[in-house]
């Protein structure tokens, strides 16, 4: 039915929540500036002016880049800021700059054209290389060219916005996210991207709501449109009705009040009303997140992803580099414990050797790579062991499907220890080892695996994906990815029972651990630890503190009796509504 009023139709877009919070405001459509380059011949006497114009543009580009680089260093740390360094080095290449000047003189063409043509020569050569690394460098070169040309055309870098805005874009690079955050940015909404992308992590540390993977948000949003961004539910509402705005203003208030209340929980223990304590820890990817983790009241780190040290296409970091990285994190977390997971590469993560697999999720990843590449594995184990001297480190192996893999991994740990003994290096000889349970085969074999190690930790993202045969990045089937599927509940219960039967500790470090709807259930199942994204910690703690373990057990038992996901979801929602009425649940029912 056509709209009769001037009000544009309300559109609700569903994406993936990447950083919590609610923002209501004007949208700003952030589009990358792609300059058009025209070829123009210079008249006599114009050459010197053209060379000066280029020098000015390069100086401006340099200023922009140094700003991004220093901002990156501040926000991401030196190691992560390296992704911006290639561009800076190229910009300062004296031979490239000489080539520009000489070509302007000899060809008598405008600077835009010369810069474009010179960069394009390199870019095209880089694109002929077979590896992704060179393709990334080609993007760098392209970005840099656009930056210089934009400055030649005296177009400003659009990073300053008028007033407060919710940034809507097809994709945001870490550089965009950073530079835009210096404005009164209310949040980020992107067509693409994932919850673990650098830009998402950055939004979380900036405490700005973000929703990613919205698919076609940019088709529906124009600068100046009113939008609502719900970073809890992963929703972007374009041109909301008055009623909707009012509803969300109330919601935002509720969340703000709730968060203020949560802040007071920071130093209180995560104990149930009847005195049962569960370990609440945080999932961490970058060292820089640690401060935020501590602010949120985490007692330890339940998952540190060591692969965050790797930069796509670069060599594996040396033992010394790794040691320093691990040591820094362990020192900052001390006296709390940190569980570090050995490199989990492959699948959708960084590809190690440019190997193309038809089905990477069923391919060479996690422990499989480590066992096949003893040098890489031993280097990492030596670095971890050396960092373990304060005895607050535990190490776990990802993607295990077989008990024999665990035994082989333990052999490698032994070898690494022997090598360190020969070098007279110190380490924690009783370093605890664990296995991540994220493949159905490992869930079935949980008892046997638990016998081999000190602890288990359930990685729900992969476990659900593999159990339900759903690729959650595949939009056609991603709605079938359901954590409350009865099969998942049974799998989880069986893992906990197996571990406890062997008197072993069992935690959960997947996203499910941070879902408030699941907290009572997981508590009742008997998980010893829940490790969650730092932003979700206070809320989960609040729930733990509002219930009795006895009631949680009853909820878990009841939930296991249902035969459909919908029934389980309805049941756990009802349970949390009655047991913790003041928890504002993110509404997925828009």
């Amino acid at each position, binding site marked *: 039915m056509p709209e009769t009023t001037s009000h544009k139709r309300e559109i609700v877009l569903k994406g993936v929540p990447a950083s919590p919070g609610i923002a209501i405001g004007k949208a700003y459509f952030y589009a990358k500036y792609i300059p058009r380059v025209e070829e123009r011949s210079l008249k006599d006497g114009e050459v010197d002016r053209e060379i000066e114009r280029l020098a000015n543009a390069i100086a401006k580009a340099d200023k922009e880049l140094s700003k991004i680089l220093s901002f990156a260093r501040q926000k991401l740390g030196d190691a992560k800021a*390296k992704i911006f*360094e*290639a561009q800076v*080095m*190229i910009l*300062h*290449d*004296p*031979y*490239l700059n000489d080539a520009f000047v000489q070509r302007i003189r000899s060809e008598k063409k405008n600077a835009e054209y010369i810069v474009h043509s010179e960069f394009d020569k*390199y870019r095209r*050569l*880089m694109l002929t*290389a077979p*590896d992704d*690394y*060179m393709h990334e*460098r080609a993007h760098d*070169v392209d970005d840099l060219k656009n930056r210089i040309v934009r400055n030649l055309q005296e177009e400003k870098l659009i990073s300053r916005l008028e007033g407060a805005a919710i940034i809507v874009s097809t994709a945001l690079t870490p550089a965009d996210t950073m530079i835009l955050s210096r404005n009164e940015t209310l949040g980020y909404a992107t067509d693409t991207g994932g919850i673990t992308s650098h830009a998402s992590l950055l939004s979380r540390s900036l405490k700005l709501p973000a929703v990613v993977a919205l698919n076609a948000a940019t088709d529906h949003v124009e600068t100046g449109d009113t939008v609502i961004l719900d970073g809890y539910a992963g929703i972007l509402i374009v041109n909301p009705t008055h009623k909707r705005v009012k509803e969300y203003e109330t919601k935002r208030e509720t969340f703000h009040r709730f968060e203020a209340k949560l802040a007071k929980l920071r130093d209180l223990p995560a104990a149930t009303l009847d005195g049962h304590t569960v370990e609440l820890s945080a999932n961490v990817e970058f060292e820089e997140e640690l401060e935020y983790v501590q602010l949120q009241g985490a007692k330890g780190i339940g998952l540190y992803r060591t692969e965050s040290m790797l930069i796509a*296409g*670069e*060599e*594996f970091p*040396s*033992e*010394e*580099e790794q040691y320093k990285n691990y040591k820094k994190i362990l020192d900052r977390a001390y006296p709390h414990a940190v569980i570090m997971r050995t490199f989990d590469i492959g699948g959708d993560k960084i590809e190690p050797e440019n190997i193309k697999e038809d089905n990477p999720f069923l391919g060479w990843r996690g422990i499989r790579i480590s066992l096949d590449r003893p040098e890489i594995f031993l280097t990492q184990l030596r670095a971890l062991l050396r960092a373990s001297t304060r005895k607050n480190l535990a190490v776990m192996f990802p993607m295990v499907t077989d008990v024999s893999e665990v035994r082989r991994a333990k052999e490698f740990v032994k070898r690494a220890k022997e090598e360190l003994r020969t070098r007279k290096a110190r380490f924690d000889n009783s370093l605890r080892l664990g296995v991540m349970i994220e493949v159905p085969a490992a869930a079935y074999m949980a008892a046997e695996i638990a016998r081999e190690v000190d602890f288990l930790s359930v990685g729900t993202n992969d476990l659900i994906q593999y159990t339900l045969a759903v690729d959650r990045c595949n939009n056609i089937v991603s709605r079938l990815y359901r954590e409350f599927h009865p099969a998942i509940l049974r799998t989880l219960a069986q893992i906990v029972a197996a571990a406890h039967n062997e008197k072993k500790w069992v935690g959960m470090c997947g996203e499910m651990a941070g879902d408030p709807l699941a907290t009572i259930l997981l508590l009742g199942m008997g998980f010893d630890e829940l490790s969650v994204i730092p932003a979700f910690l206070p809320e989960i703690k609040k729930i733990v503190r509002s219930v009795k373990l006895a009631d949680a057990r009853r909820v878990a038992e009841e939930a296991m009796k249902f035969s459909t996901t919908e029934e389980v979801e309805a049941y756990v929602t009802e349970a949390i509504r009655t047991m913790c009425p003041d928890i504002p649940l993110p509404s997925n029912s828009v």
Partner: protein
Amino acid sequence: MVEREVVIKNRAGLHTRPAALLVKVAARYKSEFIIVKDGMEINGKSIIGVMTLAAEQGSRLTLRFDGDDEEEAARTVMDLFERGFDEA
């Protein structure tokens, strides 16, 4: 003029960090420094050029030095390749 053949030893090849180191070391000498790979010639003192070579581990390169300090430049640069760019 001095010409040397070299095979890249380090795992990462001439990626960003080794490329930057090579350019920095070459810049200390007055001699012209050309790298030839599969018929492609680039200026060894230009970072974008060295990056573009996409020289992987095992690649065979010809290094050409021309100038007053060519012997010394060749020695230092060859040493850098021999040491695998000090990659651990």
